[in-house]
């Protein structure tokens, strides 16, 4: 687990999570949530959980992002924090 690539992916997960919460535009936030979901799917594949990675890619990076963007369409796009 001390390989450089695994540490890099773990760092990317934390950066994507913090960035998704810190931006003020909600569509950027939804996109970053999709990227977070995709990178964590990659990490599940590294740990050998291929079924869980398949499901996380289909659900998190596909369906959940679409639901978010459709809700932002019906409500407002800017957030104050």
């Amino acid at each position, binding site marked *: *687990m001390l390989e450089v690539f695994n540490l890099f992916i773990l760092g990317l997960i934390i950066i994507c999570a913090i960035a998704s919460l810190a931006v003020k535009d909600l569509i950027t936030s939804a996109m970053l949530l999709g990227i977070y979901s995709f990178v964590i799917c990659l990490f599940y594949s590294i740990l050998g959980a*291929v*079924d869980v*990675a*398949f*499901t996380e890619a*289909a*659900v998190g990076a*596909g*369906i959940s992002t*679409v*639901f978010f963007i*459709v*809700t932002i*369409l*019906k409500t407002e796009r800017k957030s104050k924090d």
Partner: protein
Amino acid sequence: MKILSLLLVIVLFIMMFPLVENLPQFGDPNQISNQKVSKYYLEHTLEVNDVPNVVTAVLADYRAFDTMFETAVVFIAGLAIIFILRRPRRRKNKNGYVYEKLVDHVGYQPNIIVQTTCRIFVPIMQLFALYVLAHGHHSPGGGFQGGVILGSMLILLAVCFNLRIMLQKFSIRKHILYSAIGVLIFFMFGFLAIFFGKNFLDYTYLNTILGLTDKESRSLGILFVETGVAVAVMSVMFTIYANLRTSGRINTAEQ
């Protein structure tokens, strides 16, 4: 309030940080959690049902009770979203109530590039979803993954063409019916076992109907049950999308 929450989070982190060294060593093959039940499942799953993908065998054969209620949870979530969003939107007038007219305003003209690309993609997605569903025994996949890909195919059709055109071909009432049929398929395959004298969700009752061995009937039972899960999940994903997109203002009398 903000300083208090930050302090609470930091205190929790400092308290839980030393507990990490008490957890079993990462990657140890002789952990106690790898020994008792999981060892039995790994060693005996090829003799009991001929399914090499142990995760599908655990999900649909050894722990089928959990999967049955997971499918019910997905169906209930779809129903709950319908109950939250679909309501008679009315205003009080001096003569009584005035109901808002149910129109769907998603009536834009589909673009020709988007239309053609969608027509190329949709058959490939359907074929891939059915492949993933049918090969759940031998490769990563199964019922839920195939159902989500089918649901994405329906959402792709609704995004590229009108939602109105999509609902004319395949209305919301049919989607709700299909999701109920999916949950019913799963429950039925469990109940039929009781009529033949076996336990609930014991798939070996198929060898009296179809004349197969025990191993083959369990493998076939897993396939039928995964099909039920896929149908339920496909319809629930599209129902949630359609209700979120229009805030519940779908006119089911016409569509």
